[in-house]
């Protein structure tokens, strides 16, 4: 392939001997586009895709940058179609906004693997692989609910630090969180929205701590902004509550394993889905199915389960941290 060597910490799965799909097949070109964000998770997505593609000798990886918004992404995708790739793996800025592009590519005979942010229209993609935002909130809610029930706290004070509030995925996470807490009869006392960066995480956390002088639990949607959240908590010398993170960054997993801070768990939303998306795209391009399944073709939809990483299982997940 034409790619530079992938960085060391990417989440990839090399060909394993027993898998009949491991053998090189027809040479194909996979086009890839993800939003340009200077945020750790998105950076990991791009890294993983690149690295996974590099493990296949029969895949040419063609990445286009997506610019700052849906309009910009649409523009570069037009140039990508002109290059006539065999499959396109696309993480859109916004599934609804780029739905039209998916339709166009599919109509042009290029299968689209829709990564993470879903196209509403099933005709717009061949395969969809995404994380479960709602499920992530549910996982966080259940972890907190169980932990507080175990401590026998009747009406706990629960805080939430969300990510960028104008994104639908943030809304879904919060809804899942709320729904899961409701099963325990709990509610969120205060919810702040940061912007996926450590400095905004710090700011919102500092204010939240002021608003809730006593707190029992806190869910922070994103481990990257969590660095700032933890900094604010440490600076305020607060430790009366437990905190749950989101996404599953390497630093968060290490912190959980070390058990030195209020961070007790994190619910995953793993960028490893990008690696899997490349694998699926390769199978689609080569007209193969998933070896473990009975079907001869790749399924239409794959939704990752949000897993909960705690001190107990942290070591197993460490290699998946990004």
């Amino acid at each position, binding site marked *: 392939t034409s790619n530079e060597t992938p960085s060391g910490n990417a989440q990839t799965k090399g060909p394993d001997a027993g898998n009949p799909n491991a053998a090189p097949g027809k040479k194909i070109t996979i086009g890839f586009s993800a939003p340009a964000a200077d945020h750790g998770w998105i950076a990991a997505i791009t890294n993983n895709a690149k690295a996974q593609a590099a493990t296949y000798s029969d895949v040419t990886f063609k990445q286009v*940058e997506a*610019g*700052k918004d849906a*309009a910009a992404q649409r*523009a570069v995708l*037009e140039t990508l179609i002109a290059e006539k790739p065999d499959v396109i793996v696309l993480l859109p800025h916004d599934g*609804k*906004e780029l739905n*039209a592009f998916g339709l166009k590519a599919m109509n042009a005979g290029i299968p689209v693997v829709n990564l993470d942010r879903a196209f509403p229209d099933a005709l717009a993609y061949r395969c969809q692989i995404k994380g479960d935002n709602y499920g992530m909130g549910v996982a966080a809610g259940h972890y907190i609910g169980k932990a507080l029930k175990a401590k026998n706290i009747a009406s706990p004070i629960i805080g939430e630090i969300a990510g960028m509030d*104008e994104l639908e995925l943030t809304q879904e996470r919060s809804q899942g969180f709320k729904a899961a807490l409701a099963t325990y009869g709990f509610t969120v006392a205060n919810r702040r929205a940061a912007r996926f960066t450590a400095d905004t995480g710090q700011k919102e956390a500092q204010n939240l701590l002021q608003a809730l002088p006593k707190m029992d639990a806190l869910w922070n949607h994103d481990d990257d902004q969590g660095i700032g959240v933890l900094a604010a908590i440490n600076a305020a010398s607060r430790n009366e509550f437990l905190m749950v993170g989101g996404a599953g960054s390497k630093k968060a997993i290490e912190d959980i394993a070390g058990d030195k801070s209020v961070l007790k768990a994190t619910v995953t939303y793993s960028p490893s889905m990008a690696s899997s998306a490349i694998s699926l795209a390769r199978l689609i391009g080569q007209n193969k199915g998933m070896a473990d399944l009975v079907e001869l073709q790749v399924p239409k939809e794959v939704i990752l389960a949000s897993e909960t990483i705690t001190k107990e299982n942290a070591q197993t997940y460490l290699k998946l941290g990004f």
Partner: protein
Amino acid sequence: MTALTTTGWWRDESREPLRRNLGLIGVLVALFGIGAIIRPDLYGDPQWVVDNTLVILQQAAAIGVVTVGMTFVIIGGGIDLSVGALIALAGVWSTTVATQSFGAGGMIFTAIIVGVLAGLVNGVLIAYGRLVPFIATLAMLVAARGLAAQISGKQTQVSNDQFINGLASSKVLGIPSLVLVLLAVAGLGWVLLNRTTFGRRTVAIGGNQEAARLAGINVRRHTMLLYALSGLCCGIAAIMLTSLATSSQAAAAELYELDAIAAAIIGGTLLSGGRGTVTGSLIGVVVFATITNLFAIANLPTEVQNMVKGGIIVFAVLVQQLKFKSVKQLLTRT
């Protein structure tokens, strides 16, 4: 000397804007040249070049419409930071389920009314409340994005109207409809600025507000109207963006304000008011759209893109200046 005697009605503008524009067109040619060097395969195909030019223009369309309004506001001595937010608000409002039930006409009407009314609020705050334009429109930016989020429930609202959705992909005489909209708005803007009392008064107010007042111009009312005009442009742009994305959301058109102001200034509009041209602003918009397009074609990583973009902006403005100053003068002036 002869120039003075051959005064046609279209000739009475000073030559400086023209020269600036030539400088910018030089930059466009240079960008084209770079593209041709990087991707001779694409640029060698005339059909591709035509298509690509239309793509660039289509991408410039919505921001171009906003920039026309912004040009008026800046020439009139103000600034409008709320344009991006107003586009989002107008877009979201016009794609609510209730509005969509009225069809394309209802959606267009709603977007325009919302834009104009929000612009009027800006104008009233600035002209009659005597708020600094920067602060008033910043407040509007924040508030309008909040309201848009409220209305949309922070969801992306899909447009189901076939006319609106088809607009962006339709062409008339081979030219994309949105480009035609831009040309129409720009043409009207040009006439408004150069051939009507409204335009001449805008220049007067921005150039010397006290003089305009002493000449009997109703400065306040005029200022208010300028912001309403900018709001109108936002309403039109909102429809264009909705059509392009077949949807609308509260986070749409982010930082359009910076892009529009930058395009106007690069096009020769004085940030302090009193001078500027619609044509220059449009070329400014096209320059920015061409840069983005070239990056996509060259497939530069975003971070490199940004570094290069900064350099190109500086270079473009320097080229404009060199057009009418010798290098020596540039270096020696105290």
